[in-house]
């Protein structure tokens, strides 16, 4: 009964063109994070996925390396239209942002000799650094009170930001350590 109701509420599977168009819209309108917009477009407006399906696919995309929204475009495209759908969704998502960042890059290189432009870009870069600091604080909040997690995050910071060690060996070592510690504490802790 439930599944019939859910199916009735969903739209028919999107075509390759619709996937491209949907993700093109997301790429063009998603300023400062595409994910909230993606949910609204995919679940509420186009009704390609139910809220539960969206959350499950997002879980997969957050588990794997790569940008969450990039992975999501591939997973959704693949689900409905196979490889062609995945390519259409991914290319749709990055086409417009690619053109726009290169345009901004051209402006930066063309006018970086001009003092006003240089000052504006310096202020822009300083503000962007502020956004990143705020994001770092937000991401760190959930591990407060967890001494082992804080210690591993601190080790990672020292290795990468202070000692400037290469990412691959640093991450392999710390991830093994961190997953081991998580495993031990989950085993010991109450279920």
């Amino acid at each position, binding site marked *: 009964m439930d599944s019939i109701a859910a199916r009735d509420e969903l739209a028919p599977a999107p075509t390759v063109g619709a996937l491209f168009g949907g993700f093109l819209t997301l790429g063009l309108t998603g300023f400062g994070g595409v994910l909230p917009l993606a949910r609204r477009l995919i679940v509420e407006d186009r009704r390609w996925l139910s809220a539960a399906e969206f959350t499950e696919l997002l879980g997969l995309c957050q588990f794997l390396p*790569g940008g969450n929204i990039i992975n999501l475009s591939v997973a959704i495209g693949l689900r409905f239209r196979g490889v062609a759908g995945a390519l259409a969704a991914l290319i749709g998502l990055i086409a417009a942002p690619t053109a726009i960042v290169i345009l901004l890059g051209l402006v930066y290189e063309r006018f970086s000799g001009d003092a006003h432009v240089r000052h504006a*870009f*310096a202020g822009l870069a300083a503000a*962007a*650094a502020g956004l990143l600091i705020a994001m770092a604080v937000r991401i760190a909040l959930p591990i407060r009170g967890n001494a082992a997690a804080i210690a591993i995050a601190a080790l990672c910071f020292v290795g990468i*930001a202070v000692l400037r060690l290469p990412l691959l060996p640093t991450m392999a070592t710390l991830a093994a350590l961190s997953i081991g510690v998580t495993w031990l504490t989950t085993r010991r802790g109450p279920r």
Partner: protein
Amino acid sequence: MSAVLLSLAAIFAELSLLAFGGGNTILPEMQRQVVDVHHWMDGRDFSAMYALAQAAPGPNMMIVTLVGWHVAGWPGAIATSLATFGPSSVLTALVTRVWQRFKDRPWRRIVQAGLVPITVGLVASSAALIARTADGDWTLAAITAAGAATMLTTRIHPLWVLAAGALAGLAGFGQP
């Protein structure tokens, strides 16, 4: 030229598969490779490109395209885009087919929870490195601090914070 493209492709393919926690975790390694190891640009250029990518719409990984374009023009942009978006996308496509089988297994949750502190350390590293190169003097550092405080205490859209930063910079407080 093709040697540069190959280097770009190799660097960004590795970053693609190490980007657990999204694009902001790989900035330190990207900066280390393109600034410290290969000297394709200086730290200020890298911070400016990060800022430009943030000011554009779309995924927060568009800096990779901009870095490739700066180093080797359109072929560079295509090389870094394919290398960054290709491997992780192929992995996603492959794992999608088996995800049902292991999404509820305990080890999947343990691995994911274990990666969280690494993501925290990497994003904090990104913030420290980007801020260090972006904040050449105390006025720019003040813009960074004000931007971070605004984002943490209000629900204002990030684009307004970027615009305010650019305007404050344009006013040229204390800059040479």
